[in-house]
């Protein structure tokens, strides 16, 4: 049992954690900014990893560049602009709001709004149908109830008289 555990644990150690380099920051705020930026910026080579996760040489270079700029006291905006100027909008995991990306940001809300409108319209139509049905079925009912009774009575009468006739016949 202990051996098994040991084997499992020894396998676990091979799970390398992504890109570790040693950077020393002036303060915690700078470290946080660095971590935030490298998490938000996308590695151009590996496509689906951010700079913090990637081990590719280019991600390493870009991390160093982000570190250099953070240490130099550049704002987040300057650093992001620097990256976009070189690698394009692709490096942003959170695309900027431009005319081009408007659909990306607000499209889902527009669709949701449309969905709500359609559901409301369907609901209203259903309600209207129900009311129409109710009014259509209830009024004739009341109207012909008297007539109905009369007819029923007439039928019952003929039947009972018929019965009488049948009884009298033999």
């Amino acid at each position: 049992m202990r051996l098994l555990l040991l084997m499992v644990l020894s396998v676990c150690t091979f799970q390398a954690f992504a890109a570790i380099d040693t950077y020393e920051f002036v303060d915690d705020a700078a470290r946080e900014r660095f971590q935030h930026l490298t998490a938000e910026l996308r590695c151009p080579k590996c496509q689906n990893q951010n700079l913090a996760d990637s081990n590719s040489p280019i991600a390493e270079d870009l991390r160093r560049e982000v570190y250099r700029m953070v240490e130099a006291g550049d704002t987040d905006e300057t650093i992001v602009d620097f990256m976009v100027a070189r690698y394009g909008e692709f490096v942003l995991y959170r695309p900027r709001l431009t005319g081009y990306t408007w659909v990306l940001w607000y499209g889902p809300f527009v669709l949701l709004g449309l969905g709500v409108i359609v559901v409301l319209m369907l609901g209203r139509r259903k309600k209207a149908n129900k009311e129409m049905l109710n009014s259509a079925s209830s009024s004739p009912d009341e109207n012909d109830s008297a007539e109905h009774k009369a007819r029923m009575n007439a039928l019952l009468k003929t039947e009972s008289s018929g019965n009488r006739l049948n009884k009298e016949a033999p």
Partner: protein
Amino acid sequence: MRRLFLFIPLAIFIALGVLFWQGLKLDPTELPTALLNKPVPTFSLPALGNKDEMLTQDSLKGKPALLNVWATWCPTCKEEHAQLNKISREEGVTIYGINYKDERASANDWLARYSNPYVVNIYDEAGSLGLDLGVYGAPETYVIDANGIIRYRHVGAVDQAVWEKLRTILQQVSEPKTVQGEAS
């Protein structure tokens, strides 16, 4: 008329289907350069062959040319090297090189061994020009016009098919320039 509304979901489905089907044909690794139609970034770096010779962005002006980013550590660069030699020898195309994050001695050895298609090589040891160009992996090949404006970027090896494409772009960027040259 009412009944036509029932086809709206089907229409949406077909439209999305066509959109996504087209999307399948796109290559997500193909990134347009952020520097398209912009000049080559300013730089001042030594030449690979002669470390005392300083090169700047102005060294790349004069003729429409290819700007090839390469390194000896890059296997794909070796793959495309023969094609670059062919382009330079047989077609007389100007090719500038950026020796990217490499060692000077081994790069010069490589050129001596496999022959040198480059007019001149920029020795970008730290990768600073590469960073400014938005290089994310060697080899990359840029088409620049006579004024040093970037017109196209290809990431990956240049083979015959890629070269055909680069040649048309080179011809396109050459034409207006010659007219301008005659006028001035």
